């Protein structure tokens, strides 16, 4: 189920990346792909009926189905923060591009795409 949601979101992101001529729209498509991939990786570690991976007083029922898998969560925690760095750097670059070329359209820039 969640696999389907994230794959459809990735498809929408790729579609936006291919069709939109505005650079800011392409950055937003990249952000959508980022979120979708994170959802996909978390879904790969979900165990039906599992608990959140935090030790509490009650001991988990024996092994199978005790926790969800904590390793994808740690990886996604890294991926989210790096995504912020990438998107902020992209936004800063776009501010400069706008100052230089006066617009963000890929096909109307001087010296680009001709």
């Amino acid at each position, binding site marked *: 189920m*969640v696999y389907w949601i994230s794959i459809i*979101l990735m498809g929408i992101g790729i579609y936006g990346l291919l069709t939109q001529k505005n650079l800011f*729209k392409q950055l*937003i498509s990249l952000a959508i792909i980022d979120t979708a991939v994170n959802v996909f990786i978390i879904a790969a*570690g979900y165990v039906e009926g599992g608990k959140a991976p935090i030790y509490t007083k009650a001991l988990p029922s024996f092994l199978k189905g005790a926790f969800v898998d904590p390793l994808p*969560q740690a990886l996604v925690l890294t991926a989210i923060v790096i995504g912020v760095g990438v998107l902020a750097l992209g936004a800063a670059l776009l501010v400069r591009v*706008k100052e230089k070329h006066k617009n963000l359209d890929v096909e109307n820039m001087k010296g680009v795409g001709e």
Partner: protein
Amino acid sequence: MMTALVVLAGAIMTVAAVFAVEAKKILDSVIAMSVVSLVSVFLFIAMRAPDVAITEASVGAGLVTAVFLVALFRMKGGDEE
């Protein structure tokens, strides 16, 4: 119950993503992207990942939207001069 909520969240995310890609104004697009991030927080909670959920809520939905809005505001400010 949980499955129905997950399906609803997926529907909202898909509609918001299509709107974010196809909207005419970039401001609408940024807000729709933030909606996608916020609903994905619910998916993370449904998949028992509270750590990722709190990080996505503060970093992905909060800071990225703020940075995009500030960058957009700078661009708009440059337009009027």
